[in-house]
């Protein structure tokens, strides 16, 4: 609705331009004149009672829709089974319950907000109000009184004269926070040497994570990728994740002629090599293995290791080569570890250097 629709007699009389806030005029002491607030303009709702009624109805309607949406939320929570799926274009097949709950709660909240905004903009008072700043400093009398009170209090407590009390109080206040610091010890047991050891040790068989069977050298084909856990570590164990976070192992097989690193060849068995699956940068599981380039890539920060060359870092932020596990074959013909990793697995820590 534009101003043309407003009947002439309904327009307010000329405004009192200086109604709100103090206004100053430029003179010698104050060279900057304060222009004051611009004249207040009325809204259609201030002038036309029918428009105000309309706004009121719109706001009330929004609040009512919100109430209905909340009722709808409760109703869908009660009635829609949680495994029912519906097709909604363009989202696809989604859970009917999630969709209904989101839609109704969204509508309920949106209508409260929209109603409040419409109410504030069209019906609540929009008269501009100026609030003058007050001086930051306190009055001199108030200051003097506070200082006098403070001095009197210090004198009455005799803190300056009874030095023993003063010093012991300072001591007590200084020591109290220490109890909080000591409690930090409860954050967990000290790591000890656990960062340097894993669940691997001499004679432990390499057990295939997929089939839970010990691996034979003939199982591992050139170009394949297999993950293994140490014999005796079971998923039902309470600390399984903690143990595997250090012991996770990936096994690949290369043509022995392709192995460039002498120690890697020595620690392998017929081209089968076993490396830690934990990135030496920040410990992400790293197994994006490219079988033609023999590179393994970390998904977190793109550290790349060359598994045909002692898992040397060829790109990215990792600081150490991946630790290799020395493997051999047991008497029954299964792949077995010939010891733990020689160096700590995973990211560097400060004692490691």
């Amino acid at each position, binding site marked *: *609705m*534009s*101003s043309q629709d*407003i009947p002439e007699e309904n327009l307010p009389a000329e405004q009192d331009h200086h109604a709100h806030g103090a206004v100053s005029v430029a003179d010698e002491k104050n060279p900057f004149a304060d222009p004051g607030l611009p004249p207040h*303009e*009325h*809204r*259609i*709702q*201030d*002038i036309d009672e029918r428009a105000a009624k309309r706004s009121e109805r719109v706001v009330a309607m929004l609040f009512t829709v919100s109430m209905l949406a909340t009722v709808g939320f409760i109703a869908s929570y009660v009635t829609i089974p949680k495994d029912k*799926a519906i097709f909604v274009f363009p*989202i*696809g*097949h*989604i*859970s009917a319950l*999630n*969709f209904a709950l*989101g839609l109704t709660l969204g509508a309920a909240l949106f209508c409260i907000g929209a109603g409040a*905004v419409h109410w504030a*903009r*069209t019906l609540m008072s*929009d008269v501009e109000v100026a609030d003058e700043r007050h001086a930051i400093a306190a009055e001199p009398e108030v200051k003097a009184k506070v200082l006098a009170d403070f001095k009197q209090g210090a004198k009455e407590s005799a803190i300056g004269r009874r030095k023993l009390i003063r010093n012991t109080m300072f001591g007590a206040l200084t020591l109290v926070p220490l109890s909080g610091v000591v409690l930090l010890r409860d954050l967990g047991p000290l790591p000890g040497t656990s960062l340097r050891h894993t669940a691997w040790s001499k004679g432990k068989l390499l057990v*295939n*994570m*997929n*089939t839970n069977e010990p*691996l034979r050298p*003939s*199982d*591992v*084909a050139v*170009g*394949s*990728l*297999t*993950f293994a856990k140490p014999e005796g570590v079971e998923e039902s164990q309470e600390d399984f994740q903690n143990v595997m976070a250090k012991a996770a192992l990936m096994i*690949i097989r290369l043509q022995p002629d392709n192995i460039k690193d002498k120690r890697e060849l020595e620690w392998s068995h017929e081209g089968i090599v076993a490396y830690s699956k934990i990135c030496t940068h920040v410990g992400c*599981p*790293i*197994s*994006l*293995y*490219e*079988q*033609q*380039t023999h*590179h393994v*890539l970390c*998904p977190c920060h*793109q550290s*790349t290791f060359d598994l045909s060359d002692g898992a040397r870092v060829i*790109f990215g932020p990792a600081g150490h080569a991946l630790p290799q596990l020395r493997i051999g074959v047991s008497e029954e013909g299964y792949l077995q570890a010939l010891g733990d990793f020689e160096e700590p697995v995973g990211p560097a820590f400060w004692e490691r250097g």
Partner: protein
Amino acid sequence: MKKLSARRRHPLAAVVVLLLALACTGGLYAAFAPASKAQADETSQSLTIEEGKKLYAVGCASCHGKGGQGSSDGPSLVGVGAAAVDFQVGTGRMPAATSQGPQVVKKKNIYTQAQIDQLAAFIASLGAGPAVPTKDLYGPDGADIAAGGELFRTNCAQCHNFVGSGGALTKGKFAPDLQGVDPKHIYEAMQTGPQNMPSFPDTTLSEKNKKDIIAYLDSVNSSKTVNPGGLNLGGIGPVSEGLFAWIFGLGALIAVAVWVAARTAKAKKS
């Protein structure tokens, strides 16, 4: 009858009669022609290999060598097995237009399944390798979707992402999205390890494991997948979700705030 004879001199009458005659002859031939299965199996096998060899000479030999021994442009195909051929040719990756570039990508397959089978038979005759899986190996019957999910996250998710949406590798290489890939081709890829993908032979990832993985992919990454949370934004994890929330979610809020503030409520528009 009067209606028909009235139209016998219509210019299209001859065409209609000809079409009818052709359809009749074709139908009669199809009904009475001798069944091709009558031939002896052994002869057909060697014939298939012979046909495959001819196809190989035209489409593959320039890179992989006349006897499949490989060259500087393509690896040896001795011992890769029929499954590798069925995957590479069936997904259109082979024959590749060029051996340049980070990796050979999926494109339109130009061979019929019969021709692929002939090629596969020829390659399989060069050296033993994995055979093309039968439908009961990759079909959904008896598969454990939950176990498949665990196996997928252990063996595949590092490259193909949690629900098989694919992901980036080094130097322009990537692991492709697995949606819409024929279950047979997924099975063959696991068996043979095409290009830079490591292989997962039956000795380390059993036939049942592979079936479970395929059933998992079918349940989480196919056109009939139910996504309880709504828009999955490609299923590639927190990056796309965060981007969507920050740009579209926050953007919409800012746009509404600007729109509310820009519209004056005054009766007299300035």
